[in-house]
């Protein structure tokens, strides 16, 4: 079992003929993801890798292929438009990998997607993977292994670092979700924790947060109130200076809020297992699952 995606997910790639889109579409096909269509306006009628039909628009792709999931690799200037189009076409899960989407776009995109009953993951995220079943995004498949630990993170390579520790120690994952490093994102830690709590295939959850905002604090409160499964947490950016954007647009301590100390204190109060460094994930997950 898993959350958000599984082997039945029918995926379209928006921006499949672009450099990034084509590269990652190939990787996803190789992993076994059901890529049923690609979309690039003006390139309709082409075939990608000799087997994936390309359409001019998402609505047409959905009508012809029954796609329910979309992954977006278009440039930042076109990303909001691509998300609107996917939601309008009835896509249930929209994963936006694109980095650099203006906040002013996202304040309108997020309610639009929500009102249509769709879920947006990202933007500026690595996507998600249900090991052995489906990969939607850019998380390297070879470091993951199917299993029963859920993982949710605001980061990309830091996620890989943690997943790698789990896999090398024989701890497989149900689903790994990268929710993105921007200040406004479609799916929060709380959304993922709720889904993992409900997923019979997940026994424990690893949550990788970072400085900036209050999403981790709200997640901690949610864990305390509604999550019965063990949760292990990490916060990146303990040494980050205030007021500076640490790569991710969302990773910034504003005034005195969004610090690592504040988030770790919330984790502690909610009884999470706290990783002080990525390598500690293994011991903590093992200990919590034995309880």
């Amino acid at each position, binding site marked *: 079992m898993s959350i958000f995606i599984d082997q039945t997910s029918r995926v379209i790639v928006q921006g499949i003929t672009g450099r990034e889109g084509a590269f990652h579409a190939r990787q996803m096909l190789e992993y076994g993801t059901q890529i049923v269509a690609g979309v690039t306006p003006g390139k309709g009628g082409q075939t990608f890798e000799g087997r994936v039909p390309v359409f001019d628009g998402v609505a047409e792709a959905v009508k012809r292929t029954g796609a329910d999931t979309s992954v977006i690799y278009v440039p930042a200037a076109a990303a909001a438009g691509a998300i609107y189009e996917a939601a309008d076409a009835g896509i249930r899960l929209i994963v936006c990998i694109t980095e650099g989407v*203006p906040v002013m776009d996202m304040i309108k995109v997020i309610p639009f997607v929500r009102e249509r009953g769709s879920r947006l993951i990202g933007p500026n995220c690595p996507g998600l993977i249900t090991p052995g079943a489906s990969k939607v995004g850019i998380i*390297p498949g070879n470091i993951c292994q199917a299993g029963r630990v859920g993982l949710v993170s*605001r980061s990309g*390579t830091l996620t*890989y670092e943690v997943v790698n520790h789990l896999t090398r120690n024989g701890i497989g994952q149900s689903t790994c979700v990268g929710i993105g490093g921007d200040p406004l994102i479609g799916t929060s830690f709380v959304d993922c924790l709720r889904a993992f709590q409900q997923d019979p295939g997940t026994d424990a959850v690893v949550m990788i947060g970072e400085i900036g905002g209050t999403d981790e604090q*709200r997640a901690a409160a949610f864990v305390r109130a509604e999550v019965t499964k063990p949760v292990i947490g990490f916060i990146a950016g303990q040494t980050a200076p205030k007021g500076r954007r640490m790569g*991710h647009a969302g990773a910034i301590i504003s005034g*005195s809020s969004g610090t690592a100390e504040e988030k770790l204190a919330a984790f502690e109060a909610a009884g999470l297992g706290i990783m002080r460094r990525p390598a500690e994930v293994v011991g903590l997950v093992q200990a919590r699952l034995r309880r």
Partner: protein
Amino acid sequence: MNLHEYQARALLKAAGIPLPEGEVASTAAEVEAIARKLGGQVVIKAQVHTGGRGKAGGVKLATSPAEAAQVAERILALRINGLEVKRVLVAPTTDIATESYVGLIIDRESQRPVFMVSPAGGIDIEEVAAETPEKITRLAVDPRYGLLPHQGVDLARTLYSDFTQARQAAQIMARLYGVFTGNGATLAEINPLVTTPDGRVLALDAKISIDDNELDRRPDLARLRDESAEEPSEVAAREAGLSFIKLSGNVGCVVNGAGLAMATMDLVKYYGGEPANFLDIGGSSNPEKVVNALRIITRDPNVKAILFNIFGGITRTDDVANGIVEATNAFKVNVPIVIRLTGTNEAEAFRILQGVGMTALSDMDQAVEKVVQVARGRS
């Protein structure tokens, strides 16, 4: 990207928000001329990207053009929190009856623009929020409709009992909302919003931050960036497509991915060291980025050792290895380099490095521990 006060004022003025006259100058002679033109008492304000200007002596009054020139001379010679004062704003002083605060931010929790207004203006709003939160009124705006007229009036009435003033303030808020959304701001504040003894409502100081992601499609705003107000190494890094922040430690860090870069800095600290920088070389596997990264880091004389921490997913570790070899051939790196590589093409990467007599580790903890020791041994 933060705008200077004079730049923020120009945006407010263009939107029709009433504010006192004012001009920007970079020499004492210019200041004198502006003061003469304005007549009467003027205020001279340092234009630097930092708080606490007043306390540092960066905001002063002058009663004559000659005094204005003297005051400007002193302010233009200041460094405030390490930043050189290159420009000053000269404005006539305003008689003030009351001072309020009006701010707009993007609230991450409600995912909307949120107004914050308070009758306790003129001071740091964080202080008000911490000490007297009841003095702040908040309103989340639905971005599809903007600030509705009655919402603006309701907000303004929390500031002013006089309805004429409330109406003026409501109009200012509506225009501020237009400036905020029209320029892709993440923060726009008027502090203080004042009333004058004769009942007018004026914006006396303005602060605007623009979303960096907005700048690609808004070259007019991108041009407002003041690179002289930034750390030179950070300007160089941005031009090379790197995300870099200079810190004060002695362990240089080159990492792929922002989250991993932060976690690497944290681990340096965990093992008793101090990071010299945050640096994310990004996802692309381009040797040139590695060369640029090394160039920028080695310019910092505090750096005693450099750590590479690369998790190859999309980034191919053999490309990074080639970049390291290329960089160390291109110029002499005088500090030891500790390399951690794992993931895509790692065997090839290790072979490339061994070919030039370099070694690499595959474990992050081992590499960080080692680089901290090496840096300590050379300090």
